[in-house]
């Protein structure tokens, strides 16, 4: 990968079930205060624990507010020289569902409001962007968006990039994961021997990436991508795909494995995912860096997860404090250093993992400015 410029996260903003801004989100993560609650709204015969946004406005109006918030906090006058990169797995699925459930007919569905591009369409109606592109690789969508932003900025191809990870809950996603039998009815317990599944969740997470550092900037040091080439929903049991993505991220960042202080794991709380990721971490990181998953607090925000966890990773670096695994009781793999309490320590580099259906893997590395 050609690298001409260093790349920085200069501003970020988020809203999730765990907090309506970054500060509340991180406070709740550190105090173990989960945003996950049992819910019967979607299916009467099941009550999975989900992470719903507690907002009084529509999802798309909240999205506009988040992007305005970034603009207000940045040193940009507008987004006219900004590349917009969206990461989403469902796009406008919720509105399609609402219409179809009422009419049982496609006639009233606007195709332009259904697909992933609807997010970009909304934003372009309010802000004028230089250009936009939308990625949809299921649960790695916004991690891949950050990776692409890193690539184009480090190659000197655009001036700045706004990454938006956004996914709302829908019956399709809740019902789909129920059908797979992987939803827990309580906040998830990633890496626990008795883990019983994940929590589907919704969120909007936005990050402005630039090549000039500002006060409080966090560096994006590298990205690694891989594909499992194994199964549509199951990772390779020994985590070979995850291993490859993490290894490539280290190579791009020109770092050694023992440079990584903390891994914000994908850690969904499912049997297959956690054991594969743990095996990959054991193989690549013999020095046992600290590991935790913040999904028991935020839930798995699907296409928004990479962006939300990039914000969490940057807050870890900014505040030099590591989140624990608050619901962990019996670690299933003793060979990884799972945090059982919040830990204040010196943190230089953080890795954030995102894995998805189809064996799509993306690992990102963030660093403290030196």
């Amino acid at each position, binding site marked *: *990968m*050609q690298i001409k410029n260093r790349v920085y996260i200069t501003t970020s903003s988020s809203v999730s079930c765990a907090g309506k801004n970054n500060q509340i989100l991180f406070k709740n993560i550190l105090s173990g205060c989960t945003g996950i609650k049992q819910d019967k709204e979607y299916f009467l015969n099941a009550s999975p624990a989900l992470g719903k946004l507690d907002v009084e406005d529509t999802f798309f109006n909240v999205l506009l507010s988040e992007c305005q918030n970034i603009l207000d906090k940045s040193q940009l006058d507008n987004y006219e020289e900004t590349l917009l990169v969206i990461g989403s*797995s469902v*796009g406008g*699925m919720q509105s*399609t*569902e609402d219409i*179809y*459930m009422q009419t*049982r*007919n*496609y*006639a009233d*569905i606007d195709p*332009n409001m*259904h*697909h*992933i*591009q609807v997010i*970009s*369409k909304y934003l372009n109606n309010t802000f004028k962007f230089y*250009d*936009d*592109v*939308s*990625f*949809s*690789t*299921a649960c790695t969508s916004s991690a*891949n968006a950050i990776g*692409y932003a890193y*690539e*184009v900025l480090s*190659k000197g*191809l*655009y001036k700045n990039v706004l990454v938006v990870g956004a996914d709302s809950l829908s*019956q*399709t996603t809740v*019902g*789909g*994961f*129920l*059908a*797979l039998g992987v939803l827990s009815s309580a906040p998830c317990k990633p890496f626990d021997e008795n883990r019983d599944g994940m929590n589907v969740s919704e969120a909007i997470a936005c990050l402005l990436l630039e090549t000039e550092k500002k006060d409080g900037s966090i560096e994006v040091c590298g990205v690694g*991508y*891989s*594909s*499992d*080439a*194994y*199964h*549509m*929903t199951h990772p390779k049991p020994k985590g070979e*795909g995850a291993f*490859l993505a993490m290894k490539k991220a280290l190579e791009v960042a020109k770092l050694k494995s023992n440079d990584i202080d903390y891994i914000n794991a994908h850690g969904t709380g499912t049997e297959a995912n956690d054991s594969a990721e743990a095996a990959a971490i054991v193989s690549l990181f013999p020095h046992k860096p600290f590991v935790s998953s913040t999904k028991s607090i935020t839930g798995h925000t699907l296409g928004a997860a990479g962006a939300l966890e990039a914000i969490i990773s940057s807050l870890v670096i900014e505040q030099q404090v590591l989140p624990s695994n608050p619901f962990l009781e019996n670690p299933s793999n003793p060979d990884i250093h799972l945090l059982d309490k919040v830990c204040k320590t010196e943190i230089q580099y953080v890795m954030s993992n995102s894995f*998805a*259906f*189809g*064996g*799509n893997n993306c690992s990102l590395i963030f660093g403290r400015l030196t």
Partner: protein
Amino acid sequence: MKSIRLEIIQSAYAFGQKEIEELHTKTLVPKMMTRRRLTRAAKIAIYLSNEVSFTGGRIVYGSSFGELEATANILNSITNKEAISPTYFQNSVYNTAISYLSILQENEEELLTISSGDKTSDNVLKVGAVKSLDGDTLLLLVTETLNIEDIEKVNTCEVYLECAVALKVRQTDKEPTIQLSKSVGDSKVAPSMRTMLNIAKQCKVDKVNVIEISL
């Protein structure tokens, strides 16, 4: 404005009013259990990948509407209060087609899926051009598979419900030989397909085919 030139090493395209015929899936995917799980887009991706002799490497894939049939089946199950099929759900994500392709080819490289509405093939070209600066050969692939029951209630424009284009590309400094446009002649396919279809149609066998992509 920055621009990047791509040499098109091989190209292929296919379209059909309802379905693209003769995808040779039985030959290309001999295992019946695997073949049965494939979506239409996956079968088309496998077919076109074979047509351009792509056996592995990075793929930039695009589709405006993704896996419409799986999505519609889930929607019908929910509306009819029936159980959702796990296979439909796993096959409903936008990156399904190239995931199956990667499984068949044991391809562990980066797979990226773009869904940018009418601009999908333009953005596949742009993202592919950016990635090509790393020096490898990439597969750029777009598909639309709109042939679902009652599609006529929402589709009033597209004559060809299935369309797909594959371009095997690498970065070059050679002079462009192909002009980028969305020609009127391609208006019977989904707008998301038109730019890449137009390019594929202009490619000449045994000639150097080069396009310039403006970012």
